[in-house]
């Protein structure tokens, strides 16, 4: 979308529309709606939005320990004295930390890989934050690593690769259980998921 398409729109507004249009999932109409909405918003709220956008670039860093996105380095999870420091849960993306934290079940530390092995897309083990993990394992006594990568082909290959790499130096490496989701129906489950659910069945 260029200025030529919007000859009647004031220059600052059409620039804003173009910027919105560059964001993922925002089409030309949504971009226009958002921009006009901002025009009508009170100045203090627009300033607050603008400053929070700027601050994600200025105030956010990667935690040198767990590689998660954080405001302070090391992050609040890594510095929390109540956390169990002998367990590290390995996840693909920062958003996965959020999902696991919401469960309220886990009290150990994390390590964010920032991706998964996908050879066909040119992503190999060297593109993940594995050197930082190895460094952590050298410095700290870790009893258990939990591999919480996605149960997709990429996530599984990453988990197998890390297991191979680290099994000589970590006492216990576990993988998140794979099985049936809550609210699902057996009829629609694929045989691999069902097979694994049977393998991992538990007494009640």
């Amino acid at each position, binding site marked *: 979308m260029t200025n030529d398409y919007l000859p009647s729109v004031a220059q600052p507004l059409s620039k804003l529309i173009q910027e919105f249009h560059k964001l993922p999932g925002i089409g030309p109409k949504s971009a226009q709606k958002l921009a006009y909405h901002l025009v009508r918003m009170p100045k203090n709220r627009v300033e607050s939005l603008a400053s929070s956008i700027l601050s994600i670039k200025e105030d956010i860093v990667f935690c040198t320990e767990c590689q998660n996105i954080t405001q302070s380095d090391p992050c609040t999870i890594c510095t929390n004295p109540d956390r169990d420091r002998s367990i590290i849960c390995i996840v693909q993306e920062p958003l996965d930390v959020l999902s696991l934290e919401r469960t309220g079940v886990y009290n150990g530390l994390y390590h964010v890989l920032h991706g998964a*092995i996908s*050879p*066909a*897309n040119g992503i190999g*083990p060297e593109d993940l934050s594995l050197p930082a993990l190895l460094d952590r394992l050298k410095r700290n006594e870790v009893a258990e690593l939990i591999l919480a990568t996605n149960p997709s082909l990429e996530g599984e290959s990453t988990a*197998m*690769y890390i297991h*191979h790499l680290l099994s000589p130096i970590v006492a216990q490496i576990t993988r998140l259980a794979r099985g049936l989701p809550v609210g699902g129906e057996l009829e629609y489950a694929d045989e*691999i998921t069902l097979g694994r659910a049977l393998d991992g069945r538990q007494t009640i």
Partner: protein
Amino acid sequence: MTSTSRIYKTEAIVLKHFPYGEGDYILTLYTPNLGKIRLIAKGARKIRSKLGGHIEPLMHSALLVRKGTNLDAINQAELLDGYRSIREDLERLSQAMYFCELLDKITPDEEPHHHLFKLLQETLDILSENPQQMLIPYFQMKLLQETGFMPELYACIECNINIQPNRHRFLVDRGGIICEQCRPVGPVPLPISLQALKVLRFLQSGESFIAVSKLHLRTKTIGELDKLLTTFINHILDSDVQSYRFLNEVSCSRM
């Protein structure tokens, strides 16, 4: 258009996927009767999707597809073979990913080729039973044969005389063997041992994998075959097969 014609059924092996939108995947699949196709699987990334577990890469599934304006969409999917033993072994998995990427790169879209589907299925079946060192050159040569890129292995590609033992080299950009007398311009020909040439001819003769797997080859010859075929394939594709590096890394460390 009648209502029935908007829906069709096909078997397919998923070659790759990439995330699209909020929870969708766009898949590249190989089918027996439609060749290589691209389909959208709506909601397949969501954990409770009824499609997700049936259409991961390397899965062989029966699909019900609804025609769409841009991409056709998968309506229903049922797993026929998930190749679990491949998915749970990194060495086999790295090989399977290489086969899928190679087939994806070398074939054009929507060009039916039943033998290629059979080749992929046969190769994954063999791999899921037992990893075999000759499987990669077997797949590479069959693929070259089926796609029309089979190298010339008997007569010199310059002067057309029959090649004498131990007096030959392989010219990648011409796709065949060249004799000692000919001096081609351009890239330097690759050396090829008599042993490696014989193995290539044996693979070319269309022997079944059972016969191929009985060959006892030295590690050096296998390495030579691997280098030659990979260089030749990269030349045909005009790009690297990216999974090859991972395949090598995994097999070197014998996972």
